[in-house]
């Protein structure tokens, strides 16, 4: 089902009024595609029936939130990025007595566990806290459990090696039929919480913020708003890490950040 452009705009406003979730700053092309898919999968066939259900059934709406936002991730996604963190960023973080890291838009948590592994291998996990947030309560629950499809482990293991890992990756999980549970020592230092980048405030100061492949779904104005939130949440000399195709180039914050290295999307705050 293709939902008309005007209907989408109206729906977004009504959803905001009813539930407080504001999707109006999301890029329309991706949102349209996912809303169309959600409406097409519904057992109801009439647009206004689905819309009424969305506005009156909170559980159905939460399912909508989970499906219209993108939750595709993998461990050590973009291996060279993690290699760079391991070799160039962790040695700097190691000089702090206590390390605070924020994974903003953590989805099902694969990147948080990846970070915990490289911190552990650098003997830094014990003095670190990893805050992992997402607007979706359902994915946060999955992330907390640290249980991932067993079928992904081969890819994860390969990414781990490319990211400079030298251990046998299987020491980090226990496989059980179709799932693999990551070692509990990894999530002891993680704090999971829902947080909506669009509407929630800064809640701490960090030395490293990672937000990868989230800003691509926001329009330029919302990107700017979220980058300012990160700026406010980052200590002086802290690091901000974005996805491969994301940049702070167009943002007002770019004047007091410097890209570290020339390939990875990691910036360091200068003041």
């Amino acid at each position, binding site marked *: 089902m293709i939902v008309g*452009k005007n209907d989408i705009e109206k729906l977004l406003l009504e959803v905001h009024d009813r539930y407080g979730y504001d999707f109006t700053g999301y*890029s329309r*092309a991706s949102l349209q595609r996912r809303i169309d898919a959600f409406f097409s999968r519904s057992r109801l066939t009439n647009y206004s029936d689905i819309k009424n259900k969305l506005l009156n059934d909170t559980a159905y709406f939460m399912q909508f939130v989970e499906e219209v936002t993108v939750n*595709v991730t993998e461990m050590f996604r973009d291996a060279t990025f993690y290699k760079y963190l391991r070799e160039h960023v962790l040695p700097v973080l190691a000089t702090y007595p206590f390390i605070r890291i924020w994974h903003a838009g953590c989805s099902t948590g694969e990147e948080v566990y990846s970070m915990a592994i490289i911190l552990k291998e650098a003997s830094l996990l014990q003095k670190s806290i990893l805050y992992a947030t997402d607007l979706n309560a359902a994915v946060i629950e999955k992330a907390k459990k640290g249980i991932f499809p067993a079928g992904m482990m081969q890819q994860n293991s390969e990414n781990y090696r490319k990211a400079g890992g030298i251990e046998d990756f299987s020491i980090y999980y226990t496989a059980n039929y179709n799932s693999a549970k990551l070692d509990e020592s990894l999530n002891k230092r993680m704090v999971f919480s829902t947080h909506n980048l669009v509407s929630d405030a800064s809640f701490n100061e960090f030395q490293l913020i990672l937000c990868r492949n989230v800003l*691509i779904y926001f329009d330029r104005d919302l990107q700017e708003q979220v980058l300012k939130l990160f700026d406010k949440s980052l200590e002086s000399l802290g690091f901000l890490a974005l996805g491969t195709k994301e940049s702070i180039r167009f943002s007002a914050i770019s004047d007091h950040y410097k890209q570290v290295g020339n390939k990875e999307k990691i910036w360091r705050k200068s003041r």
Partner: protein
Amino acid sequence: MAQKQVNKPAGLIIIGGSSGSIEALLVILPQLKKTLALPVLIVLHRNSSSDSSLAFLLSQRTSLAVKEVDEKELLLPGHIYIAPSDYHVLLEEDGTLSLDASEKVNYCRPSIDVSFTSAALVYQNTLVAVLLSGANADGAQGIADIKENGGLTIVQDPAEATVAYMPEQAILLSKIDHILSAAAIGEMLNTI
């Protein structure tokens, strides 16, 4: 809040392909004249590890500017944009491009169907779509959507394509406007 209207181009040429499509592009692109009035977006299946060497390779064979898509980039006439590896490319109403790292479609990211269908909705009858050689059915549904929305559809002649499967699937699914050799596709794009 509706998205701001910047200046959406008057139309768009969108080209999809997989295995064997680079050979076809190396015939088509050198023919394109610098005066081409529309932007060109190329969505090819590639290895997720590949870097920006595809843009470099293609830029050696055309007088038009070639670059890999940046997110929220505004499309300019006479420029060639290449979909980056591991992202779908979507078209916005304001003439910009968005990237999307969601699920693979037809086992592919970028997927030709995803970009074709998105472009069909935004560019309607100002869209020109070309589907080249490939060993996967990606693109067939997208080109059917483009046809349904009034766009012009062109498919590389399966008899000429290095791998006939992709153009064949498109031809089976919808009535394609023109089935042409790569050389004839280049000529035709210059007349648009």
